[in-house]
């Protein structure tokens, strides 16, 4: 297994240490807003442990994935909604 994986966040390629979470990869690309709230506010990760659901994004077409509990994989396509 290689030590790094490369994934795309909103089309931007980002390299992360193997085992990193998608939430960290998103922030590393400079994106802070992961989604919009029901009234349109920007939101990003809060709890970091799968409880708050603020970090949910679309991963490989599947909506509402908690990025803080999803490990980065090579070739992953991550879309934020912020």
């Amino acid at each position, binding site marked *: 297994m290689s030590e790094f994986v490369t994934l795309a966040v909103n089309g931007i390629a980002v390299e992360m240490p193997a085992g*990193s979470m998608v939430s*960290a990869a998103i*922030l*590393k690309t400079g994106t802070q807003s992961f989604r919009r709230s029901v009234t349109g506010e*920007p939101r990003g*990760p809060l*709890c970091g*442990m799968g409880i708050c659901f603020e970090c949910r994004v679309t991963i490989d077409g599947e909506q509402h994935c908690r990025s803080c*509990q999803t490990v980065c994989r090579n070739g992953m396509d991550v879309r934020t909604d912020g």
Partner: protein
Amino acid sequence: MGDARDLLVVGAGPAGMAAAWRAAQSGLRVSVVDDNPAAGGQIWRGGPPEATVWFERIRSVEVDVINGARVFQQLRPGTLLAETTSGVCELSYKSLVLATGARELFLPFTGWTLPNVMGAGGLQALVKTGLPIEGKRVVVAGSGPLLLAVAAYLRGHGANVLLIAEQASSVQLARFAVGLFSKRSQAFELKRQLKGVPYRSGCWVLEAHGTEKLEVVTLVRDKKRLRIECDYLACGFHLVPNVELAKLLGSDVEPRGVKVNEFQQTTVANVYSAGETTGIGGLELSLVEGEIAGLAAAGKHDAARELFPLRAKQRKFADLLNRTFALRDELKHLSTPQTIVCRCEDVTFERLQKHSSWRAAKLQTRCGMGPCQGRICGGAVEFLFGWRAESVRPPALPVRIDSLIHK
């Protein structure tokens, strides 16, 4: 039917690992199920050196660790359902240990919903899982010993920790320092790692400012306001136990956590609970409670009894901890009428104020009815309005439709 193992442990943090190890050592067939991609819980995320002995213990016995599986429902007594990326699994057991840990308590203040305002443990978890923090300006605020551990960790990874703001007063903290006597070496180590970082007691966040993300934080101390520009605000007000699964299974829950007897057994037969789930008490208490639960589940009550004195000592420390970091009343007045309390449904403070109970507020405003199911705002409304969450109904977490129609 799933395979009915002797013991199922929910939660692979310290308490769950200790329970699994003791039970497996005693000859039980044990599985541990956890929602995270790897074992260790929050405190041992990433497998720090101090956890090595416990990871080795788990490897030394036969324990089946199921990661990335979220328990959301009881199919029938003795069988739980968990959702994984590849579908639903049935987990059948003869005995169960609930070691579901704790989450941070978040209190609303203006701007707390801005991106880059996170929990203290929340930011640490992100850094542990790959977020580069080097050179970033961080304010750590809120309450509890976690703030120090988080600040030391972030600094060790190159963060510029500008301030640690602890809401507890210096008088409260002085009592705690005396009680820390037994944990002296840990305290000295933290002090060394945090040399030069201002630690302010009686200091708390009033407001976070920014438009699309956090830019500035305003804090107060001795009635004086401080404005600090920063990249991250790591803010948590100590911890609250995760009791939802215990409630779903019908266990009695007290204000401090899941109710257990001396053998860590809940009010439901064959269901045990250990660690932060039964009351916030820290790592050592979690470990010894886990060991007692594992031994008791294996019928080794005499061996479990031998650990009671150690547990009693750790509980005393936990009581001191919880008294020290009791939250001050001023924190009830941080919200303005427009401050959002429920982040899932964007319910403001003024909309909640009109109601007299959690149930009424939920029905009229949808507070606590979004994806987190009140896990974030529940602790806040309890502190702000004194409303306690009522029963938990299945599913305990939002799951995919095909998980719900599992037969």
